[in-house]
């Protein structure tokens, strides 16, 4: 079974990718503006609710409950989908999921599909697969459309084109859309004009294409229903107008009952876009004789999720409802943007999910892409303790390294073991203090060290305070002696 998720295996380590991203001043500006806007909206709209913490407690407990009974809930979900006239497919990995979806489209002789944004389809790299087999996938989310036409990659899973500004969008539309045919040969740069261009470009596809592919925010075990939360209306188009609907959903998206939505509906839009509710929420159950597609297929995706489930501490990452509040709160993501993570899920949640999905074989630099400030945990509507899981993954990576001679002899490992030894003895500590004071001697001037061998990662941009002549414990010992004297 493949362990690769997207291009994570080939992505450069975060430190390297971040360095380049930080130098892109356009990106820096876009990221700062976007994350600050959403963050403020989110804080205001959450501040409106006196029972936000109670909602968080319920959401967290409900998700933990689902994981404890996940097998039973998945089986119940399947039974109810079938009872309501739908079909259920199970995909162990991305290869299998792609195959299932491709087969379904080919069985119906489809050459085109309309897609409503789903990160899961990016995770399994569905679009290239379809295109390689003569099937054209049309992204219909404005942001995904921009990404698709601009041959770019998503950098945020709620606002994927957050790293692109309106001028850049206009350029993409001018290059790739048949604007003259659409009656928009003098396309302006204001957002409403760009939205109008997207509307016209997509409308004829909605009314024509017969197969739709979607994801889902929630899968309800009690009824076999699915839920899609969206702002633009393209989701409703793809869920309602085609003849055949295929929904791809991760197995962790299951919730027990229709009633459980009362918690998540209250939290998702507030956390994701700072709105009380997203403009449209669609709930549907397989097929309905008078309304919507005649045929419905749901593809349940594992692709490493059972691996995450195995880790008692790490499995809380599966509670994620993909609101991206952690991305918006994160001081690291807010400066480097999503591409630096080299992963389909970036930001704090990506840093704990990506390595686990891939059995810690890839995305190994991501657990270190954090100062552990805790802003993500504070923002998370389902109370995923991201800092704790980051430390847990760091410990697994360290243990992994310590099992090989190369890791054992690494500077970091030796240094850490040495320091632990020093801290286990008062006399060793005092000796270490003296050595450090001596060692820094030639490099200090006016109480400061500006450069010192081995410390360049710090000193190339920051000064270091020099070690004072007397440590605290030495001062205390002298004071004691003076008092006795």
């Amino acid at each position, binding site marked *: 079974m493949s362990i690769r998720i997207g291009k994570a295996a080939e992505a450069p380590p975060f430190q390297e990718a971040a360095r380049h991203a930080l130098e892109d001043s356009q990106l820096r500006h876009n990221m700062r503006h976007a994350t600050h806007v959403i963050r403020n909206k989110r804080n205001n709209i959450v501040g409106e609710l006196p029972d936000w913490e109670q909602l968080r407690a319920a959401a967290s407990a409900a998700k933990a409950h689902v994981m404890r009974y996940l097998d039973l809930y998945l089986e119940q979900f399947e039974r109810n989908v079938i009872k309501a006239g739908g079909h259920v497919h199970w995909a162990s990995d991305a290869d299998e999921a792609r195959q299932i979806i491709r087969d379904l489209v080919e069985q119906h002789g489809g050459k085109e599909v309309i897609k409503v944004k789903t990160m899961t389809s990016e995770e399994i790299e569905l679009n290239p697969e379809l295109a390689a087999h003569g099937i054209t996938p049309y992204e219909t989310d404005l942001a995904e459309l921009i990404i698709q036409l601009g041959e770019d990659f998503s950098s945020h899973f709620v606002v994927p084109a957050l790293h692109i500004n309106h001028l850049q969008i206009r350029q993409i539309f001018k290059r790739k859309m048949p604007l003259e045919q659409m009656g928009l040969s003098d396309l302006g740069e204001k957002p409403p004009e760009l939205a109008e261009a997207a509307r016209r470009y997509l409308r004829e596809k909605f009314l024509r294409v017969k197969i739709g592919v979607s994801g889902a925010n929630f899968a309800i075990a009690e009824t076999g229903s699915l839920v899609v939360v969206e702002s633009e209306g393209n989701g409703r188009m793809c869920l309602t107008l085609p003849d055949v609907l295929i929904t791809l959903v991760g197995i962790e998206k299951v919730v027990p009952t229709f009633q459980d939505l009362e918690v998540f509906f209250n939290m998702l839009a507030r956390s994701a876009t700072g709105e009380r509710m997203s403009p449209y929420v669609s709930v549907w159950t397989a097929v309905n004789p008078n309304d919507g597609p005649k045929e419905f297929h749901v593809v349940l995706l594992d692709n490493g999720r059972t691996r995450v489930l195995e880790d008692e501490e790490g499995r809380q990452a599966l509670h994620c409802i993909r609101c991206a509040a952690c991305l918006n709160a994160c001081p690291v993501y807010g400066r480097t943007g999503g591409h630096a993570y080299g992963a389909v899920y970036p930001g704090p949640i990506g840093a704990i999910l990506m390595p686990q999905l891939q059995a810690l074989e890839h995305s190994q630099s991501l657990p270190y892409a*954090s100062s552990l400030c805790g802003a993500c945990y504070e923002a998370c509507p389902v109370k995923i303790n991201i800092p704790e899981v980051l430390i847990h993954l760091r410990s697994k990576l360290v243990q992994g390294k310590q099992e090989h001679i190369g890791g054992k002899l690494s500077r970091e490992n030796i240094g850490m073991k040495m320091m632990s030894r020093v801290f286990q003895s008062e006399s060793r500590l005092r000796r270490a203090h003296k050595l450090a004071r001596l060692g820094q001697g030639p490099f200090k001037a006016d109480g400061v060290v500006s450069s010192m061998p081995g410390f360049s990662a710090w000193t190339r941009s920051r000064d270091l305070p020099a070690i004072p002549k007397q440590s605290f414990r030495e001062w205390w010992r002298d004071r004691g002696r003076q008092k006795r004297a």
Partner: protein
Amino acid sequence: MLVSLFVACYNDLLFPQTGRAVVKVLERLGHTVEFRSAQTCCGQMHYNTGYIRESEPLLRRFVETFRDAEVVCAPSSSCVAMIRDHYPKLAREMNDPGLVADVDQLVPRVFEFSEFLVKKLGVEDVGAYYPHRVTYHPACHSLRGLKLGDIPYRLLQKVRSLQLIELPEKEECCGFGGTFSIKNADTSQAMLADKVRTILDTEAELCIATDNSCLMHIFGSLHRGRTGVKTAHIAEVLASTEGEPFV
């Protein structure tokens, strides 16, 4: 009260003046301070970097050193957050029921310095005097870990002649994050640049915090940039009096 000082490993070596300031304030308030020299390090750096096994002996040593202390006070919110949030869990992972009991009994007696003054001693006015423009940076561990809230502000408001200026975007991390500042030096520096910019915008003469780890990072840039703005631990401002002003 007999207060057992846990000065924190980095303060011991790099910022002894912070320890001295804590002693001064507590003695001024009429308490006795003891310093158990067996103390070394709480193990946070190892733990956060993923060297859990290597942090376990440090947990043991901390517990052995302070097991029978009446109360422990530390001028480091990151150390206290390590002890409060992670020691109980780590002790359980070490499969030592005696140790777990010791940790569970000790943790409630461990305080960060500013919360010790306000919550344990019930004191906000410590008799301090510091006639300068000061801005306060809430360290992430103090803000989100220990949830100190307005405790530091209440203490600073009682410092005579001190002019406290609110730091814009104060809840943003300064970018230190322990080994993060080395492993991800570029991102760390980018975060620091924004923190320094907001500090300079306040036109304060001094930036203070409950943690010298953040302050060391902030100092690194304020000094390199020849900004003239200084950094100090909140204890040093609270220790300052007319007779013995903090400089």
